[in-house]
């Protein structure tokens, strides 16, 4: 019975989008979305319109991350309000188009939920990425997904960091959800990675259908990894990297890194330890696309978030 306090009510999720190709060389999302554009049967659910959409078609065509600039950093208020014109970088123009179709960001007309499908070269397994610790709808959804795929696991990364948070493609929606599955090289389609992403999307859509049918999801708690800091590679005065992710850290996403543990190895074999004050949980370890963003890994802290019971607002 929903007589307890602190139940949150949300409107029916009427419009949901699944984005692929935000980075044109992350092949699971590109392949799934193209498949679902051709044949929608697998993503259809009653009570909700689900739209599969390629966000960066030129980058997909070229099989590169982006053409002019990273689309997944382009949804800033400044970019979205800038005047259209020939001089605009392709992705800024594209951000405005996506915002027009699926937004406007921050308005009541925006899509209810957007899933943005990504791959990483890091050994992160399946990871759901959230941008708010108080979006109970999203927290309940990831809780549902984690239970549904057990014993397979799925981590939850929370990026609410004031400086490290970025203006994602999915942020156009009221409830943005990132889905990152790795490890997979750019430009490669691995069957197991593809099927993992596909299974998670299936459960996500099942959750939405259940929610829309009036099911109440009781209060729950969700373990998340909250973004703490980004750590760059050691570099020389010319900006060239002088060390690689240490073999003991490589592929150890989500495992504790303690002060003094090996973190980097120079090209002539010297170990550089982690010099933070307290243990952290690194992730995005050795993501190829982050070399140019000065990021060898992101450190996170473990936290348990509480989510209110949620239920659809009955009309």
């Amino acid at each position, binding site marked *: 019975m929903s007589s307890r306090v602190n139940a949150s009510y949300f409107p029916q999720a009427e419009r949901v989008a699944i984005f692929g190709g935000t980075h044109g060389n992350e092949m699971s999302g590109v*392949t799934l979305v*193209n*498949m679902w554009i051709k044949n929608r049967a697998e993503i259809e659910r009653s009570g909700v319109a689900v739209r599969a959409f390629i966000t960066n078609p030129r980058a997909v065509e070229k*099989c*590169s991350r982006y053409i002019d600039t990273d689309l997944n950093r382009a949804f800033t208020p400044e970019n979205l309000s800038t005047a259209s014109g020939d001089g605009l970088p392709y992705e800024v123009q594209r951000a405005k188009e996506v915002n027009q179709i699926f937004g406007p960001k921050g308005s009541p007309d925006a899509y209810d939920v957007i899933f943005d499908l990504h791959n990483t*070269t890091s050994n992160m397994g399946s990871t759901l990425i959230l941008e708010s610790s108080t979006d109970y709808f999203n927290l309940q959804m990831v809780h549902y997904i984690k239970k549904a795929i057990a014993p397979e696991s799925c981590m939850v990364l929370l990026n609410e960091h004031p400086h490290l948070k970025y203006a994602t493609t999915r942020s156009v929606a009221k409830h943005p959800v990132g889905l990152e599955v790795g*490890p*997979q*090289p*750019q*430009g*490669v*389609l*691995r*069957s*197991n990675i*593809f099927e993992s992403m596909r299974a998670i999307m299936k459960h996500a859509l099942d959750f939405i259908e259940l929610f829309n049918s009036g099911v109440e999801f009781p209060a729950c708690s969700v373990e998340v990894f909250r973004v703490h800091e980004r750590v760059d590679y050691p570099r020389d005065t010319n900006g*060239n*990297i002088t060390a*690689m*992710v*240490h*073999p003991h850290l*490589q592929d150890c996403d989500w495992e504790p890194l303690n002060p003094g543990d090996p973190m980097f*190895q120079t*090209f*002539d*074999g010297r170990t550089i330890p982690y010099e933070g004050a307290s243990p952290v949980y690194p992730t995005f370890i*050795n*993501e*190829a*696309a982050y*070399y*140019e963003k000065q990021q060898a890994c992101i450190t996170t802290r473990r936290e348990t978030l509480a989510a209110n019971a949620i239920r659809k607002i009955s009309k």
Partner: protein
Amino acid sequence: MLPALSRVAVCGGTHGNELSGVYLVHERLKRRKKSQVMEPVAVVTVMSNPRAVQRCVRYTETDLNRCFTHAMLSLSASEQTSYELVRSQELNSLLGPKGSAEAMDLICDLHNTTANMGLCLITYSDSDWICLHICKYLQARAQHPRTDVRYIHYDIPRSEAYSLDSVGKHGFAMEIGPQPHGLIRANIFMAMQEAVQLLLDWVRLFNSGAQFEGGSVDVYTLVKNIDYPRDPHTHTIIAAVHPDLQDRDFCLLHPGDPMFLSFSGETLRYKGKEPLYPFFINESAYYEKAVALSLARRRKVEIPAIRSSRM
């Protein structure tokens, strides 16, 4: 008795996003600047495609490692319609000319692959005793980290050989995987660094007159390439490498074994009549070349003892 290898080239960055070779060449060039120590062997260290390295892409206009056929090296200036075609002729002047007496004695071209291939020496001959002995030497000594070393042979005549290593009198691509393009893994870098050091050790020993005992080497000779299953109208890929085949480079593939898993859940099987050895399974750069995997026959090649004719 074979001539000494007095001039050796180590090349990296032929594909600008294959970073083990890029950083190995970068470090070698840095160390060369710092110390004036002469190495026992005259080694030329070359960054093959600097523009692609700078952008961290495989190539800027055309694949440099397909630009070394005799025909392409003979194109006139007006026919050199890409950066890489111009660069291949520059490299041919520096390290060749291909087919002439002035060419480098040995070229080692450093590459990475996303396929789970360990360390492979890839060359055009199955009777080049220098290359085969180097392979045997590496197989016995590649320990830190422990690395599988194999010899791959593409049966293509020298004039049609299209890769940079074909410019030297002897040459091979040294290919190490698995590593995604655009990043560097410490264990892979160290394996390549050790292999290059072992290679130069071998050359020095060979040049000093040491005798290398004969023996045998398993040679994998390319038979054919297999493309992804595609939609007949749109040509888009409709299946992924099967999970049972993914990462199983050099595990014998039998007729009837799973090869691909379609997106609709169907297993597509190997329909050849002959069991063959797969390699380059799911190499990202080969999607555009319509290659999902390559298949090879394996045979033991007997190699004689060799020794350099002292100068």
